[in-house]
């Protein structure tokens, strides 16, 4: 399915060599840069119309920073974000405003993403105030009601305030606001991690339905691997500011070749107590290194059980490993490891695949 899309269409969003460093400064009067937090350090990916790209990784690996740079909330240190071939990081004024119509965002925390002093109608209708060309003045009220209906809320709620809603309902309001301008891309920064599990499923299903109805492309940032697998066509695994492995969901989940992905997947809880015994957990030692002092060579080598002197000297490129090139197996996907290797029985409880 993914390959069909890729063959058929141009990517709608291309990220090339995206770097975001936050300077560390010292001194009160004369600021001197003493270092940088390398939050995002060379990220490339493409997003095709109508598909969902999942970005996973542990806390602090730069997922949210990628989202903020994509949305132009932060200027990148270097690199380009191309929307239909146009670099949006250099835009400003009316041109930026026009592009923003097409890229919207759903936020993580539904409790801070809605202004407590505005009614739901004002919140969802605010984009229409800013882009009057989208909906004529007399039509806005009806559009807001339609949007509420689309996300499964009672359209009569327009005059209510956010504090009168539950977390899941608030997140729906946030989604309705994101949909208001008919965007083509929605960046979802952990859209369900602040909700309880029963509501997570509702919201994720809603997002899938909206994707089918409106042909949206999602960049879905999350740390919950099961949800990412549920909704995503392709997955990119991030570690310390870089993508370490990327591929279709079956390729990543069933045939991971990067040790970090394997470790991450082995930590997914298994809902079957009997299967736990035969489970092969990879326990990583140590902490994630500080992004202000990134290890040389491969970033993961400080915690990797396969690390060899070569990993310290040369940074592995994100490319299809030589061992799997032209193999035609599902393991043939980009993985940034010198010793990329398929690991059998990564997801316990499933039959070993070979």
């Amino acid at each position: 399915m993914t390959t069909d899309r890729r063959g058929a269409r141009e990517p709608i969003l291309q990220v090339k060599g995206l770097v975001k460093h936050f300077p560390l400064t010292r001194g009160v009067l004369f600021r001197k840069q003493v270092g940088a937090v390398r939050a995002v350090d060379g990220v490339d990916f493409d997003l095709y119309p109508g598909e969902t790209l999942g970005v996973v990784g542990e806390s602090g690996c730069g997922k949210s920073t990628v989202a903020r740079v994509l949305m132009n909330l932060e200027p990148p240190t270097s690199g380009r974000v191309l929307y239909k071939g146009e670099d949006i990081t250099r835009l400003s004024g009316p041109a930026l405003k026009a592009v923003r119509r097409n890229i919207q965002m759903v936020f993580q925390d539904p409790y801070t993403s809605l202004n407590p002093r505005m009614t739901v109608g004002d919140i969802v209708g605010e984009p229409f105030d800013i882009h009057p060309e989208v909906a004529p003045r007399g039509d806005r009220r009806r559009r807001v009601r339609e949007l509420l209906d689309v996300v499964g809320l009672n359209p009569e709620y327009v005059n209510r305030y956010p504090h009168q809603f539950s977390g899941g309902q608030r997140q729906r309001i946030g989604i309705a606001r994101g949909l208001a301008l008919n965007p083509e891309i929605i960046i979802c920064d952990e859209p369900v991690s602040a909700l309880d599990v029963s509501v997570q499923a509702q919201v994720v299903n809603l997002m899938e339905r909206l994707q089918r109805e409106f042909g949206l492309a999602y960049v879905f940032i999350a740390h919950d691997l099961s949800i990412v697998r549920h909704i995503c066509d392709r997955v990119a695994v991030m570690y310390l500011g870089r993508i370490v492995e990327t591929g279709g969901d079956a390729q990543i989940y069933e045939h991971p070749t990067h040790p970090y992905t394997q470790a991450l997947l082995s930590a997914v809880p298994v809902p079957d107590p009997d299967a736990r015994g035969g489970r092969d957990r990879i326990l990583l030692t140590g902490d994630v290194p500080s992004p202000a002092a990134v290890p040389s060579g491969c970033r993961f080598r400080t915690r990797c059980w396969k690390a060899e002197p070569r990993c310290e000297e040369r940074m592995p490129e994100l490319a299809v490993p030589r061992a799997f090139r032209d193999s035609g197996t599902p393991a043939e996907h980009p993985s940034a490891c010198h010793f990329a290797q398929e690991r059998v029985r990564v997801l316990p409880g499933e039959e070993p695949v070979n």
Partner: protein
Amino acid sequence: MTSARETTTTGSDNETDAALARAASGTVPVGRSPRQLAWIRFRRDRTGVVCAVIVACFILIALAAPLITKAYGKNPYTLYGQDDGLLNSYGLPLKPNGGIDGAHWFGVEPGLGRDVLALLVYGIRTSLGIALCVTVLSVVAGVTVGLFQGYLGGRTDYVVGRFSDLMMSFPQQLFFIAFTPVIVAMFVRPGNAEPTWIRFAALVIVQFVLGWMALGRLVRAQVLSLRTREYVEAARLSGASTARIVRRELLPNIWSTVLVQSTLLLPVNVTAEAGLSYLGVGMQTPTPDWGLMFQDAAQYYQSDITYMFFPGVAMVVFVVAFNLLGDSVRDALDPKTVR
């Protein structure tokens, strides 16, 4: 406080139930704005309501001063004590208790012999008028500066922040005493008569110049925490301009802080103005003014304590009521504060 919180929670529960009932019957659910909820909470606070009534009375008296004195039959400029022979040769009222009688309910002023009640009623106008002007100007300036300082950040924040530090480092009382005559002298040539409004304006200016920084800093701190909220970012993502974000997203959310601070600032300004009059740089005789009444009374308090009593009580009641009102407003707007 606890009871208020409990009632709010039960209130919202009831509301949810009611909403469910209404949803079931197919009618439109009502939304209560945060402002309406605060108003409901405020009405439950008895101290707050009493203080609000007292403050409203003071304001009403100030507004209706000419009517009151007309009904009472006196004015604050006639020297009744001297004209009607109510003062002895030392300038003290002949009658006991500061000359209280059927004609002069609060007695007569020692020295000049004006009617104390009329002075008091007109004195509110001057004191409250100056304090109100200073408060309004300080709030407008403080909020504007704080909002843009906090939202724009960076160099703007640094420069404006250092400027307000500079203003804060002036010793207030000394500055008032030193600069009020200077400002008056800028408008009035020496030897000419000084119109009352120039003194009024000078007092407003000096107090305003050193009065806006505290609120400015407070607003800045609030905005710093608000500007990274996701709803502000959502507005930026939609392409909202800075002016729109400040007006629609930030201002409504700092409004409660501003309201509380200004109700606490006003009584401070009332006492500051009275202090200046007492020190001799405020309003000048014969303008009726609370501070001036204190100044006069201080000369006579050993022989005529009644004269100090009325402005003293009036001012204490006003300041206490206004401060308690400020506290109640804060409780109503922010039910989570437990004191």
